[in-house]
């Protein structure tokens, strides 16, 4: 293979310690190398901003609930239609586009790796089928354990090793990547028509608390040496006054891993509300950011909302029911036997709504008040806060106080009494944006070791070249150019191949699905565990032998093997 040479690139590669150097990047066989021969194809980046491929560490793009969001909002599918063109399939949808729509839009923004935020183990096949149809991004799946009966029984018995064994078996069976806890205990309580309201509430019928589930799973995660930490959607999402639950949850995180955080809190904007009702809701981003700043063992993502129409979808069934009681419109509610649940509601975030304006401000505040950008990643919990195509706009808001002031004039004027955003002057720079959109994600997900998120020799050649010249632009003033530049790359390179040029996908994709296999000692292999087998025979509607996802569902599966310390 002749290779590819990207010349005159303005490179920011935080994981390699590169900040704004004009460099050449050599690529051969899909990897970054020291040099290539003279016959290599040359791309002249012309001093434009060149970053490792973007990584979204929390997005809902594939799976059963995503698909349900598609067909419960036919009006959404009318938006964002593009005709078949070259190698590009027909696409449609705005907040919940078709899989190819997601893939092309991510690719044109320079994103090459995406983590699906929540996969119900029992319904993993559907997720993997949609991963295959998201061809331009390597995909990973957070696997839901929040209401898993076997896990809760292990927690009740204070048997961390058994919890680890259940996680190891399940991740291997469903080809999942990491542990996801969504409203731990609450989703199972919702199956009984109840919810939990603090991390010390008891989950009905199981005799455990969310705090015990979280603590046990953090320990189990580290016993299995999984690449990512426990990924948590805290209890009480979207409830005024829920910041206390968030602080309590942060307080549970021990510092167990030297390479990454021990607990990843997702869409923290939705968990940083003060007040006691919707009438007095206010921002508690300062308290939450202070707690994050004080604990390097914690990482978060913003969960930024942006104004406009979108679709909310989560495994947090009781939260979606509360949202339904506010909107009294379309609502879907779903239970996944012995494991988890979900709910879906289309919403419209309005500048005229004080609550929505406070939410909008909180997301930005979290990013601006968290001192270390490695601890706060840019995400909208796509599509819950906003479709991911809004990322460039969020980047511009973080880089320009002037743009924020402009936006603040357009929102409900009462907002300033409830949020500190109006007093924050910080403007992020190019390096911090590079950290918050790829490097921090790679580190948090633990995928730097497989060559993600950086451009050092040996890394995967996933590269985004944006039509932005940092030396000539002042992002604080030229925010329109920043938005336009991050919306469409000049080149998106995936595994050494140019896949998108000037925002248009030009080749068929061939992505990989990355999953985790934790090797456990034979005594912890649950395939022959009588109690575990009995659970399938007594309760599941599928047989144990039919439960695992066959390899055929992952045409290009990449497994990360770990040795469990059990």
């Amino acid at each position: 293979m002749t290779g590819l040479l990207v010349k005159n690139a303005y490179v920011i590669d935080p994981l390699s310690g590169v900040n704004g150097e004009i460099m050449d990047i050599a690529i051969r066989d899909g990897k970054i190398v020291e040099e290539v021969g003279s016959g290599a194809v040359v791309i002249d980046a012309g001093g434009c901003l060149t970053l490792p491929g973007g990584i979204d560490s929390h997005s809902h793009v594939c799976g059963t609930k995503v698909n349900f969001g598609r067909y419960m909002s036919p009006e959404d599918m009318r938006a964002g239609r593009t005709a078949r063109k070259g190698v590009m399939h027909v696409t449609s949808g705005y907040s919940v586009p078709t899989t190819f729509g997601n893939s092309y839009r991510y690719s044109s923004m320079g994103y090459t790796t995406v983590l699906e935020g929540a996969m119900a183990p029992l319904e993993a096949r559907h997720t993997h089928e949609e991963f295959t149809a998201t061809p331009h991004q390597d995909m990973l799946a957070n696997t839901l354990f929040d209401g898993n009966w076997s896990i809760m029984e292990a927690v009740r018995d204070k048997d961390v090793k058994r919890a680890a064994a259940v996680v190891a078996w399940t991740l291997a069976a469903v080809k999942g990547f990491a542990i996801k806890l969504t409203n731990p205990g609450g989703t199972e309580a919702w199956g009984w028509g109840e919810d939990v309201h603090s991390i010390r509430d008891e989950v009905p019928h199981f005799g455990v608390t969310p705090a015990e589930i979280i603590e046990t799973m953090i320990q189990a995660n580290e016993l299995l040496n999984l690449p990512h930490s426990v990924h948590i959607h805290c209890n009480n999402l979207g409830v005024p006054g829920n910041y206390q639950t968030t602080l309590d949850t942060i307080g549970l995180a021990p510092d167990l891993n030297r390479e990454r955080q021990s607990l990843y809190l997702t869409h923290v904007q939705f968990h940083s509300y003060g007040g006691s009702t919707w009438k007095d809701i206010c921002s508690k981003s300062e308290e939450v950011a202070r707690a994050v700043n004080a604990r390097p063992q914690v990482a978060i993502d913003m969960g930024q909302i942006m104004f406009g129409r979108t679709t909310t979808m989560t495994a947090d069934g009781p939260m979606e029911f509360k949202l339904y009681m506010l909107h009294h419109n379309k609502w879907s509610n779903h239970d996944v036997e012995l494991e988890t649940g979900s709910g879906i509601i289309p919403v419209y975030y309005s500048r005229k709504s004080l609550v929505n304006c406070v939410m909008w401000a909180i997301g930005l505040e979290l990013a601006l008040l968290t001192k270390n950008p490695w601890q706060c990643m840019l995400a909208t919990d796509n599509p819950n806060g906003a479709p991911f195509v809004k990322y460039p706009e969020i980047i511009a808001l973080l880089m320009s106080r002037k743009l924020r002031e402009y936006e603040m004039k357009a929102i409900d004027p009462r907002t300033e009494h409830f949020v500190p955003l109006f007093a924050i002057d910080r403007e992020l720079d190019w390096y911090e944006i590079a950290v918050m959109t790829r490097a921090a994600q790679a580190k948090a997900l633990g995928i730097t070791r497989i060559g993600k998120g950086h451009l050092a020799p040996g890394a995967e050649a996933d590269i985004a070249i944006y039509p932005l010249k940092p030396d000539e632009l002042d992002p604080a003033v030229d925010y329109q150019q920043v938005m336009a530049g991050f919306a469409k790359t000049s080149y998106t390179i995936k595994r050494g191949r140019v896949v998108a040029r000037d925002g248009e996908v030009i080749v068929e994709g061939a992505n990989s699905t990355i999953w985790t296999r934790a090797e456990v000692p034979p005594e912890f292999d649950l395939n022959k565990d009588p109690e575990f087998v009995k659970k399938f025979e007594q309760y599941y509607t599928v047989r144990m032998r039919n439960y695992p996802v066959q390899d055929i569902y992952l045409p290009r599966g990449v497994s990360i093997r770990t040795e469990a310390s059990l």
Partner: protein
Amino acid sequence: MRVILKTRPRAKPKIPIEAETIIPQNFLRKNDIRVYEGNKERKLEDLFYVTTEGPAVSPDQVEVILTGDTGVIKRVGEYMNAGRIIVEGDIGMHCGNFMSAGEIIIRGNADSWLGREMRGGVIRCEGDAGHYCAAGYRGEKRGMRGGMVEVLGNAGDFAAEYLSGGEVHIHGNCADLPGVEMRGGTLTIGGDCLRPCGNMTGGTCRIFGTAHQFLPTFRRNGSEVAEYGGKRYRMAVYRGDIANRGKGTVLIRE
């Protein structure tokens, strides 16, 4: 300005044309208007003979006339906010969706979802209308919210489902379940209908024919006289749907 769109002969005339871009404001701006023929995007001129007469300075002054094989054209007038569209024949599904102002006149029949979730303006269909006339989208709890839909012929099932505002007038008969889940607005049915107004919580429905299988969950609340077609009729007044704690009014000719 008058824009006349006459369909061109097509090799496969049954393939539907999706034409939400056919709204008066688009012709004022003289945009490159594109429509879909099946899954293929086409220029408007590829599927229609386009004739433009006279000037216009605002969308109110634009009149679009559709002629030819118009029954396969869907979504005409979607999100329309000014001007007039005249269809010299039948029209396909979803005509006038989300329309907020202006006027659509259909000389023939209209397929399903005519005026769905309409906000304002006037639609007049001189033939029959299909199912879900002036209704809401699937799962949407508010259907038509303003404006007027008038059908001189009959309407299919679920006419004015989730009606929340505005006026719907069906001169002929309605099929099953007209006015179900009504929350506001006025529905007038000149002919017969089947099982009207289930789960109704607000608004008024007037039925000048026979209401077959009228639900028992409405409470009789006296009589009154209503005028329709130049004649005065004595109407039985019902309130309900009690099963849904509804406060709607149904008037049925005695």
